[in-house]
């Protein structure tokens, strides 16, 4: 009856803490062997730099600057993608209209988008637009696919029993499409951060994480470069976990 893409796919293997420690040890040994922090800073140096960065107020304001914009781009894209996918599911002509647009967005390189969008909008809001454009086709396609997989027998049952449209959406469409939507969110959250930071590195908006990353590169400050990279990875990871947790909570509430 009900299908879930999570049931069909092999479960993602969890990362073991010991494996992280092994790779950190490899990094430390490599950095010690090279002996030149400019070429490769050691994890201890990077953690030290990150700790000192985290002791400044500017660090949090820069994290917040990037976080707010990338998160906004992601959420706007997720909402737009769900609305577009719902319309495309209902009207095949609309799907035909939107499909070429989604394919074009998907195939254009991020760097081209960044440079193009910089012509239209200020660099301060560039990351909103870039993460929006990167996330939109991913969530759109996946959500539409989920809607198309809706169990036709359940829809027939709902039609015979004259179940209200709002109940059909809540109890049939959402449970069917949700695993697809969640999976797309999981993938595109990482993409949003990668593309958003890339946009900041190119657009250099003042007070952003991307700008600090670029400054570290200009001044050949490898420990700072890696420290900012670690900070971006941690914020991105935390954001992904938070969004997926919220999605699961919302789903449970909706289906209750």
């Amino acid at each position, binding site marked *: *009856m*009900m299908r879930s893409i999570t049931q069909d796919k092999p479960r993602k293997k969890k990362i073991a803490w010991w494996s992280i420690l092994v790779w950190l040890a490899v990094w430390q040994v490599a950095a010690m062997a090279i002996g030149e922090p400019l070429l490769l800073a050691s994890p201890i140096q990077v953690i030290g730099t990150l700790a000192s960065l985290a002791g400044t107020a500017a660090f949090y304001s820069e994290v917040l600057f990037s976080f707010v914009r990338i998160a906004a781009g992601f959420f706007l894209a997720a909402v737009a993608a769900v609305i577009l996918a719902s319309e495309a599911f209902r009207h095949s002509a609309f799907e035909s209209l939107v499909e070429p647009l989604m394919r074009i967005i998907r195939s254009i390189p991020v760097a081209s988008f960044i440079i193009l969008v910089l012509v239209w909008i200020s660099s301060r809001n560039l990351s909103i637009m870039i993460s929006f454009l990167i996330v939109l086709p991913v969530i759109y396609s996946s959500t539409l696919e989920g809607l198309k997989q809706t169990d036709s*027998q359940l829809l027939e*049952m709902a039609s015979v029993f004259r*179940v209200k449209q709002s109940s059909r959406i809540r109890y049939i469409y959402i449970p069917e499409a949700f695993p697809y939507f969640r999976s797309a969110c999981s993938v595109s959250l990482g993409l949003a951060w990668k593309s958003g930071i890339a946009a900041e590195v190119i657009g250099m908006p003042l007070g952003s994480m991307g700008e600090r990353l670029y400054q570290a590169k200009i001044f050949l400050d490898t420990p700072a470069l890696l420290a900012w990279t670690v900070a971006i990875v941690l914020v991105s990871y935390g954001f992904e976990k938070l969004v997926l947790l919220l999605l699961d909570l919302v789903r449970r509430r909706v289906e209750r």
Partner: protein
Amino acid sequence: MNGDIRMDGISKSFGEKKVLDGFSAVFKEGKVNCILGQSGSGKTTIVRILCSLEQADSGTVTGMEGMRISAVFQEDRLCSNLSAAANVRFASGTTQEKAVAALDEVGLSGSEFQTAATLSGGQKRRVAIVRAMLSDSDLVVLDEPFKGLDEQTKAQVMKWVQNMIAGRTVILITHDESEVQFFQSKDVVRLS
């Protein structure tokens, strides 16, 4: 009250295969009407046409205008993520109390809040039956409703269904003569 339901000269083909060829029948109001036949005789196609899930190639169906229908399909058609009680409430529009009480009466006491995905085949079948019975419908369509129930459970559920359908127009599709006898139906259409 809608009166009798008439199917006149209904034909239906799926590709090259003619499933119904000029089928006619009258289903009497307030009675248990049975359609008896082996698999492949077109029973389910009749149900699908009555439920407006399929369009007949030719022929007419009258007496169903504005009629509210509830059905037990050949498949259980339950939302697997919803509990047994929620499945009943969702489609029939009944209250939680009534859903739970009815589930208890068909031997599902203790399983009312289990998700449909975790129920056994026989339990799912009973949820589908309760859903159709609690729905405030003018016509109850039962397509092989007791399929997959063991003898003891089947007897218990049939008795409960008999009470629930009193005075309602029912179309029971089955291949089992004993079910026709149980409901003492005099209105039987036999399909070859």
